[in-house]
């Protein structure tokens, strides 16, 4: 498939991100701000997750507590 370069147009000004925005030195901060999750979207990080199941087993055994395992196809941090 030919790459649709015609869709990559210069964005007129900061504060106006559109589907055709191309990243430039002027708007790269704005693009990052737009993409990065806000506080509400990050609430799941309030839970002190451990990165691997076995680390959870070790901690649960030590503290005599049950394990909550979030197991997803694809990336465990990701929508799936």
């Amino acid at each position: 498939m030919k790459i649709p370069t015609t869709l990559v147009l210069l964005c007129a000004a900061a504060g106006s991100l559109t589907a055709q925005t191309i990243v430039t030195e002027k708007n790269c901060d704005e693009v990052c701000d737009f993409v990065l999750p806000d506080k509400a979207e990050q609430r799941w990080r309030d839970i002190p997750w451990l990165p691997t199941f076995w680390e959870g087993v070790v901690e649960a055994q030590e503290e005599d507590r049950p394990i909550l395992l979030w197991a997803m196809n694809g990336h465990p941090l990701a929508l799936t």
Partner: protein
Amino acid sequence: MLFREFAQHGHYADNFRRGATLQGIYCATPSGRLLASINSNDPGRMARMLREALAAWEQLSEEERLLPYDPAERSIERLENLYPEDGLILRCTVRDLPRERQAGRDTWWGEAWNQDTLWIRKDEMLAMLPRKLSKGTVQAWPEAVAQRLARFSLVDFVRGQTVAYEPGHIVLAELQSEVTKTRRGKWVEIKISGQIRTSTTGSWPGEGLELSGTPGGRGVGVELVGTARFDVREERFTAFELAAGGVRWGRTEFNFREGDEAPAGIAFAITLTEGEALDRVAPAFLWQYGW
């Protein structure tokens, strides 16, 4: 093995027998006994499952709850052990760029965002910088790093899991660092710029789990611009913010792009992780890194 012990009794017990997916949320004891499980993103159902699990936990003796040995004394061979402690650990976040008409805009698709991690070893990280760290010097990124970014990070996983690109799908993957400011012997600031284009031909998978495809392909084409600060003494980045924006098209089997295959805007933000335990979760395609 411990996971298999309790997953075989969970919500996907049939899948366990068929060798199909076991994804979901499980509550289990350290000894490997299932307490409750579910595969749902409904908060009410999830809360009920957690209450059920706690009630089951209360019924068990210590002997039933815990392993007869100390699991801390057993090391587990996992890809996560390759975490490059002294390297560069980045988080790659992705969203669709705003558009007037978007398939599923009124559903969660309209708000969808996602993230993954990107691991770069110390030798690769140092090779991203000019050997002479003086203002105006430029260094092309190592091919391995640029290709890793193209194949595994700048993929369309806004709405769900996707598959990586193969090396042959890379049309262009070029990035460079340019020193813009220095504090001799302490730190340097760099500007990062580049372009990445990936493109495949072939079939789109069918709806749901059907594998018969509709002719098509997929790809990503983005420009990248960002800045970073590198601590020369500590040999580590203390700031890193790289924006990528452009187009994506096509779809893969599980990335929820049915009806949204036409070229549309996509943007990524690649930033430093905070070094929390959670940030040690391995990149989705680490097993394809070739490490």
